[in-house]
């Protein structure tokens, strides 16, 4: 049972990770030309969000796993 839950979690994470990644990238592209300091910060944030989504996917796939993780 425990393993099944983890399995479902991983699949969900991968699926939604891809969604979040693309949403972030599209938002970034739409925002690309906007001016003003807050928008510059938003762009950095969206880029990092996309990066985070990739990291999440990789973790769920078991490609990137730290030493301390059981």
């Amino acid at each position, binding site marked *: 049972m425990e393993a099944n839950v983890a399995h479902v*979690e991983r699949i969900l994470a991968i699926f939604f*990770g891809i969604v979040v990644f693309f949403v972030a990238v599209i938002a970034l592209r739409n925002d690309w030309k906007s001016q003003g300091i807050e928008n510059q910060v938003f762009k950095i944030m969206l880029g990092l*969000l996309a990066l985070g989504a990739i*990291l*999440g996917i990789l*973790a769920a796939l078991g490609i990137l796993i730290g030493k301390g993780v059981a």
Partner: protein
Amino acid sequence: MAVATVTHPGFAGHAEEPDQLYVETRELRIQGFLLFMVSDLVLFSSFIFAYLYLRNSGQGWPAGGPKLDIALAAINSIVLFGSGATMHFALENWKHGSFTKFANWIVMTIILGAGFLSGQVLEYIHIGARWDSGIFGASFYTLTGMHGLHVLGGIIYLTVLLLQAAQGKYTYTKYTGLTLGTLYWHFVDVIWVVLFSIFYLL
């Protein structure tokens, strides 16, 4: 008046500068808020430094052994990152003048944030280490706890913003408060990218 003054270069460009008292303009507030975020970032960075320092100081890592659940962490992180995306849409919709869409997206953001928090609670129950058992527990609970408090604060902040927006405090051209809320929420997300990496992926 001396004639020389008028032709002095560098003067022409500065026609209208802030000339008021107690009116905090959008520009000032955003600037100040960004600086607040910088100092908050330093707070997180200090603890991240502490964690990495202890981990690498040759005193026997991992002391107080972590048992982290990578699957839970992955889905939980994606939930939080997703809330960043929904918050982005909320602000975009406000800019385009749609209160209903804005409200929907911000409610979704709040729900996702709450979901993340419950995921964190699950992780806390799941984990073997205690905060006083060793440096892993100390760093993990301090950093994720601090982040969790930021998320909690963010949820309250967004709720207040939603209520204020519903009461008509912001207009479709004057919405500095909403911008700040979005900035804050993004900040909380992005910090989690770092924390997720150093605790689960390193």
